C-alpha cells in the first residue's frame, strides 16, 4: 500500500543529506524515493531547532529526522529510552571557537573575564564550550563565573561580535565561516571529530515499518558516500536546496568555507554518545542519565 514518510531536517549546511534529499524531492528526482520504491512518498519538514524536531517525534507528527546529537540524547533519556533510536551518523566537525582577528587573544588563559557566546544553553556547542573552559581551569555558572558564557542566538552573535560586545563565540557552521568572513573572526579552536548531526527514528515508526527504516538508512549511507565522492556537485545541490527552502540566495563562499570544516560520515558509536553524556554531566546539565544500550537497538 501507499505510505508517506515524514522526515525532518534543518535548512543548514550541517544537515547536507537532508537538504539534498528534500531538494531532490522538490526537483522530482528524489534520491530517497528512487531507493524506497514507488509506494513511498516522502514529506520533508524543515525545523530550526533540535528540541522542536524531537517534540514532533514525540507527538508522532514526523517519523525520522536529522538532528544534533545532544537533542537526540536528551530525547532518549527523557523518554526513558522508549521513543527514539539513532540510525546512523551524518556529519562531524564544523564547530569552532572564534575570537577577534586582531590577535588580542592567543592563550586560553586570556579568556578570564571575557564574554563568550554559545548558540543555546545546553546544546552541543554550549556543553562543549563549558567543558573546555572547565578543562582550562575556569569556573562557569549559569549567571557568571570566571568566563561569562552567554547563550545567544546565532544571528545576534554575529552582530554583537561585530560591535565588540562579545569577545568570543563557540558556534557551528555556517556561522563560523560568517564570523570569519564578515566579522573578521579567527578560529581559535576546532573540534573536527565532534558529532554534529545524526539520523534518528521514532520507535513507533521503527516498529511499524522496520523494512522502510532499513531502506532509508541504506539510502542515507549511499548519499553520504556520494557526498564525499562528489563534493563540488554536492555543494551546488546543498546551495540550491538551501536557497529554495529559505527563499534566499546562499553565498557560495560561505558554503565552500563551511564545507571544508565539515566531515560527512555515516558512522557514529555509542562511545561518542557516552562521551557527550560525561561532558554534559561534568558541567551540570544532565542529572539522571540512563544506560545508552538501547540507543542503537532496532528493538523497543
Amino acid at each position, binding site marked *: 500500500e501507499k505510505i508517506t514518510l*515524514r522526515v525532518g531536517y534543518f535548512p543548514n549546511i550541517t544537515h547536507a543529506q537532508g537538504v539534498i534529499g528534500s531538494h531532490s524531492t522538490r526537483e522530482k528526482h528524489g534520491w530517497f524515493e528512487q531507493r524506497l520504491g514507488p509506494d513511498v512518498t516522502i514529506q520533508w519538514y524543515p525545523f*530550526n531547532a533540535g528540541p*522542536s524536531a524531537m517534540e*514532533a517525534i514525540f507527538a*508522532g507528527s514526523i517519523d525520522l529526522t536529522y538532528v544534533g546529537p545532544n537533542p537526540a540524547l536528551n530525547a532518549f533519556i527523557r523518554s526513558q529510552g522508549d521513543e527514539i533510536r539513532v540510525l546512523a551518523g551524518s556529519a562531524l566537525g564544523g564547530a569552532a571557537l572564534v575570537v577577534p582577528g586582531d590577535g588580542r587573544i592567543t592563550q586560553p588563559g586570556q579568556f578570564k573575564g571575557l564574554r563568550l557566546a554559545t548558540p543555546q544553553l545546553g546544546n552541543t556547542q554550549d556543553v562543549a564550550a563549558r567543558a573546555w573552559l572547565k578543562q582550562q581551569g575556569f569556573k562557569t555558572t549559569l549567571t557568571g563565573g570566571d568566563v561569562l558564557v552567554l547563550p545567544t542566538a*546565532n544571528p545576534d552573535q554575529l*552582530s554583537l561580535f561585530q560591535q565588540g560586545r562579545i569577545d568570543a563565540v563557540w558556534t557551528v557552521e555556517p556561522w563560523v565561516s560568517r564570523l570569519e568572513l564578515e566579522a573578521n573572526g579567527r578560529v581559535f579552536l576546532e573540534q573536527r571529530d565532534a558529532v554534529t548531526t545524526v539520523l534518528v527514528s521514532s520507535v513507533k515508526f521503527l516498529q511499524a515499518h522496520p523494512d522502510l527504516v532499513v531502506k532509508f538508512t541504506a539510502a542515507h549511507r549511499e548519499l553520504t558516500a556520494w557526498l564525499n565522492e562528489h563534493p563540488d556537485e554536492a555543494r551546488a545541490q546543498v546551495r540550491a536546496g538551501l536557497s529554495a527552502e529559505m*527563499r*534566499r540566495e546562499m553565498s557560495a563562499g560561505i558554503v565552500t568555507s563551511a564545507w571544508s570544516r565539515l566531515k560527512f560520515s555515516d558512522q557514529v558509536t555509542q562511545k561518542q554518545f557516552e562521551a557527550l553524556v560525561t561532558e554534559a554531566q561534568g558541567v551540570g546539565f544532565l542529572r539522571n542519565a540512563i544506560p545508552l544500550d538501547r540507543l542503537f537497538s532496532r528493538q523497543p
Partner: protein
Amino acid sequence: MKRFLTATAFFVLLIAAWHWVYVRRFWSPVLVPSPESVGRYLWEIALDGSLWSSTVVTMKRLVAGYFIGLLAGLPLGFLTARVRVLRDTLGMLALGLQGLPSVCWVPLALLWFGQTEGAMLFVVVMGTLWSVILATETGVRNVNPLYIRAARTMGSQGVHTWVTVMLPASLPFIVSGMKQGWAFAWRSLMAAEIYVTILTGFGLGHLLHYGRELNAMEQVVGIMLVLLLIGLLADKILFSPFEKFLHRRWGTEK
C-alpha cells in the same frame, strides 16, 4: 486627503531619518540596512511573486484563526459576563491563559493536529481567543443597565437581548477588543509560523524568521514594513468603518 498627506509626509520623514542614520554610519550597515537595500529586497520578492504568495498564505491563516477566535470569543465573552459560574471558571482561565506566550501551545497543537494547518490555526486561536473573551466580557459588564432594562420591558430576552442590545451597546469596547485581538492574532501567527513546521505554505513569518536566521537585516526590515502596512490596511478595512459608524451614531467625537 489632508490626513493622507500628513501621514505620508510623516512616513517619508521617518524614512529620511533612517537614511540619514544609515549614511552617517552610526551603526554597522549589516544591522541597519539602507532604505535602498530594503526597497530593493521588497522589489525583488514582489517581482518573483514570493511576496504575494507568502502574503496570501499568511493572510489566509490569520483571517481564519482570527475569525474562529472572534466567533468563539464573542459568545463566550457574553456568557462569562452574564453567568456567574462561567465567570469564576472560564473567565478565570481566560485571565490566566491570555498572558501565556504562544510557544506554550505548540506541543499541544502538534499532539492534536500533527503538522497541519490545523496546528497553526490552533496556536493562533489560542493566542486570540482569551483576549477576545476578556474584552467582550468587560464590554458587556460596562453596558449601561438602563438599556438592558428598557429592552427587557419591551419583551426582549436571552439571546435577543444579547444580540440586539448588549452587543451593540458594548460595541465600542468590542471593537477595541477586536483590534487588540487582531494584534494578538498577528503575533501568535508569526510565532506559529516559526515553531510549527508545515508544508502547506510558506508565510511571511517564515520569511521574517529566515531573514533573522541568516542575519539578513534588509529582509527582516522589509518584512516588518510589509507587516506594518498590512496592519494599517486591516485597520482601514476591518475596523475604521465600524468606528466611524459608531462615532456618528453615538455622537462621540466630531
